[in-house]
């Protein structure tokens, strides 16, 4: 019977990246995927005739450029295109537009507050400084501060050097920054509520924190540290939808001789003598391999597909308590025409990019209150993007598709389980909120797909529908991700690894987790690394 060198569980973008790098090193690799399509949360799906939805993740800026280049994903069909212009709507029906051009951005802020227009330049410098340090760690394996092997010491020194390079005052600021709430952090810069709210919303996306919760400032940073072609903080779309990323990775993997099998759900990892040696599929079929890599989140990996008896004491509990909170929903809408927004100039740069509905700091916090009480937010924060205004391939000419990301939507409701009626009510709350700023919006809707954490968990397999595979709080970052002692992609069972967003550097379509895991695996196998070392050429 055939025995693979490696089996990767889950054809999400990190699983495919991991497999591609293993295959590039000459390993015989098989990726197994439970769904009949690949991509995990980086998918393009035609759910309405003529429309291609990126129905999970919808924008991209974290994708490591060095991996994109190294795997030649452009040749494999991937094109990342920048989009621009975000309108932030305030409670009073007012709008703050984030312009792409420096002069327009400055003038717009000045319209709201001269003070804040200046402060924006300062916060941009500060955030970029913080981001540059984190960016340097993205394609590195976090050191284990308890192990202190030569590599760990070297990596710790690397981190220390980066911090020291900030200078004394900035080190204090940086350490403080990690524990701050987005609200406190922004209070130090701005006086205008809508400006604060428009930035604070980045601090809650995908996370079960409010704008006043400590730690939300890091989430804010996590959302501005990506880039599109070196423009740090810029966001892009994948031409053809996010599935184009997965498709290109799959094509790269196949070019190295790797294989992908869909409709092959793993129910158990085979372990013999403390070593992983294959997987059992839902249909009972066993596939054997020398190593097993799980791209599932840490909770699912440890508690669903591992036999408890194969795990050392304490790990099962740790994994069960790994922090996961479903907090986001997604509403994908096919539109008959481009929506128009009240009080916003109609031009190609502002009306066709994205719209955000932070309302105010108070509204954002109230939205979080709903979540705490086990309800979806009645006045939710929405981030809408209209990819079809930029990408001609995802909707027929003149028609549009709109991706709406919603914060907050709990995985479990206080009044009993999710039902189709409750799901529709959630979708309706989103539509009503948009309609208030875009009269006639409802009449444009041709088709709508509403996804609560429940649907995301059922289809994609993300526990509680958490988009990051586990909260991005400081207790679950860097060498604590997913939990201390297991941050270097190795599982407690020999020959078994993790490569999903539950590992460093966390969520986002970055391919970094998968690539880092591949580097560690090849190190264990004493094979030369195929993973590029130098991540960013930021200097």
């Amino acid at each position: 019977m055939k025995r693979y060198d490696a089996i990767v569980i889950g054809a999400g973008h990190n699983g495919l990246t991991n497999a591609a790098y293993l295959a590039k090193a000459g390993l015989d690799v098989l990726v197994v995927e439970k769904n009949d399509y690949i991509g995990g949360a980086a998918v393009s799906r035609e759910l309405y005739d003529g429309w291609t939805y990126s129905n999970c993740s919808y924008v991209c800026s974290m994708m490591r450029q060095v991996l994109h280049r190294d795997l030649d994903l452009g040749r494999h069909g991937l094109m990342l295109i920048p989009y621009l212009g975000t309108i932030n709507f305030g409670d009073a029906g007012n709008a703050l537009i984030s312009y792409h051009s420096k002069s327009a951005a400055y003038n717009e802020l000045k319209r709201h507050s001269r003070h804040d227009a200046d402060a924006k330049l300062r916060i941009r410098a500060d955030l970029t400084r913080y981001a540059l340090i984190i960016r340097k760690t993205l394609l590195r394996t976090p050191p284990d501060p308890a192990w202190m092997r030569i590599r760990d010491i070297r990596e710790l020194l690397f981190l220390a050097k980066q911090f020291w390079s900030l200078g004394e005052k900035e080190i204090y600021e940086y350490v403080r920054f990690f524990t701050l709430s987005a609200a406190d952090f922004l209070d130090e810069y701005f006086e205008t509520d809508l400006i604060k709210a428009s930035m604070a919303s980045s601090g809650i996306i995908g996370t079960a924190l409010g704008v006043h919760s400590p730690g939300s400032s890091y989430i804010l940073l996590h959302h501005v540290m990506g880039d599109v072609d070196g423009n740090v903080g810029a966001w892009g779309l994948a031409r053809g939808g996010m599935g184009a990323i997965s498709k290109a990775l799959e094509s790269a993997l196949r070019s190295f001789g790797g294989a992908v099998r869909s409709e092959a759900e793993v129910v158990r990892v085979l372990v013999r003598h403390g070593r992983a040696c294959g997987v059992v599929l839902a249909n009972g079929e066993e596939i054997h391999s020398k190593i097993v890599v799980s791209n599932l989140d840490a909770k699912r990996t440890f508690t669903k597909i591992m036999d408890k008896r194969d795990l050392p004491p304490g790990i099962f509990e740790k994994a069960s308590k790994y922090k996961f909170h479903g907090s986001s929903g997604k509403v994908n809408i096919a539109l008959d025409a481009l929506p128009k927004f009240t009080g916003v100039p109609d031009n190609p740069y502002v009306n066709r990019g994205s719209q955000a509905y932070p309302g105010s700091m108070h509204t954002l916090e109230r939205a979080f209150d709903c979540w705490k009480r086990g309800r979806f937010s009645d006045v939710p924060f929405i981030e809408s993007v209209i990819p079809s205004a930029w990408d001609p391939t995802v909707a027929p000419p003149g028609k549009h598709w709109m991706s709406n990301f919603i914060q907050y939507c709990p995985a479990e409701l206080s009044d009993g389980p999710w039902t189709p009626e409750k799901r529709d009510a959630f979708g309706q709350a989103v539509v009503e909120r948009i309609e208030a700023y875009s009269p006639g919006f409802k009449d444009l809707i041709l088709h709508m797909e509403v996804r609560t954490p429940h649907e995301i968990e059922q289809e994609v397999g993300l526990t509680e529908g958490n988009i990051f595979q586990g909260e991005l709080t400081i207790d679950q970052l860097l060498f604590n991700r997913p939990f201390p002692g297991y941050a270097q992609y190795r599982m407690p069972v020999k020959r078994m690894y993790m490569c999903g967003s539950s590992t460093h550097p966390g969520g986002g379509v970055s391919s970094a987790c998968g690539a880092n895991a591949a580097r560690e695996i090849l190190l264990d196998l004493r094979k030369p690394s195929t993973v590029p070392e130098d991540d960013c050429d930021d200097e």
Partner: protein
Amino acid sequence: MNSAPDFSLERALPTPFHARTQAFNLEGRWSSWNGYLAAEQYFDAELEYFKVRNACGIYDISPMQKYHVSGRDAEAMLNRMVTRDVTKMRVGRVSYVLWCTGAGRLIDDGTIFRLAEDAFMLTCGSPSTAWLKKSAIGFDDLVIKDKSDDLAALSFQGPTSCAALRCMGLDGIEEVRPFEIRRFELGALRFMASRTGFTGDLGYELWVSAEDALALWDALYAAGEDFGIHPFGEVATNMLRLEAGFIMPGAEFNEALKTIRFEHDQTPFELGLDSMVDFKKPHFNGRTALLAESKRGPRVSLTKLDIEGNKPAAGSFIYNSKACRRDVGYVTSGIWSPVVKANIAFAMIESKHISGELWAHINYEKELRHYSKIARCQIKQSPFYAPQHAKLTPPADF
């Protein structure tokens, strides 16, 4: 002095499309080209670049020089002037051509449109009336008309360009093959379309009388709205043409007639344009010198480089070792390519060093501090970006 100064003679001229393009030029980023205002960029060069790679973009190429050459001697005269065989061109076709001095030095490149058996249009970036006149000596049945100011032109490029033109009402545009010409009438609007361009993507150039320019723009823009239409400028053009592997006068070569210093101009062979020189046809300008060069090989060679890192290498010296002791060439154009995700460049390198190691010494700046790095270069034989969809007939919708 009370009255405003009179700049009427100094001011660069508006092109026939200026009334439309100026609305898009939000920061007034104009440069000049042959006396006309040309947009450097409209809003953001990278955005404009992506419009062409992902949807469709319009570039105002009205300042290009356009000459009608007609008469019984037209074919012979052009054939004597350019290095390719014009007699092989069928009516309704376009050809990329070069013309050289007697010493085989490149004067300019351009395109010839064969409008009829005895009527041609020659287009190029720089004014060439004097050279055309000189080249016409001895060819009597010949009329050369400078149409540069009478003809407006738009380059309409990108994967959705054909779909947009179809939507505009250009029936049959999808059958037009690369380098083919077709004439269209939309009501009172008459113009010529050619499947040509400077971007390496699917694309067309539209040629219209200056009076009808705005009508053409409006019709095109209305149809293009649903296909992502957006104007693009010189900066984006430079990125696009470099990815496609096209040379640019003033970057890869200095026009021979304007070159002061000995051999600071180039030959077609130095520019890697061997296939554009046809020794099988009768005598042409520079033939003897070019034949000699083709036998001994060019002294320097324009080379496509993929350079490590992401610092654009424009203006860098190229060395044959990491120690950078001996420079063997220089970068003529270099950019970060957003689509290829690579640091790409054209470099003029001493031919004998082409097969060895190549290193670029790149200078760059971060917040007013200057840095340099030495980056390994890899030679690329084919264009950096040559998408399949650009060659299909009929083209796909996107």
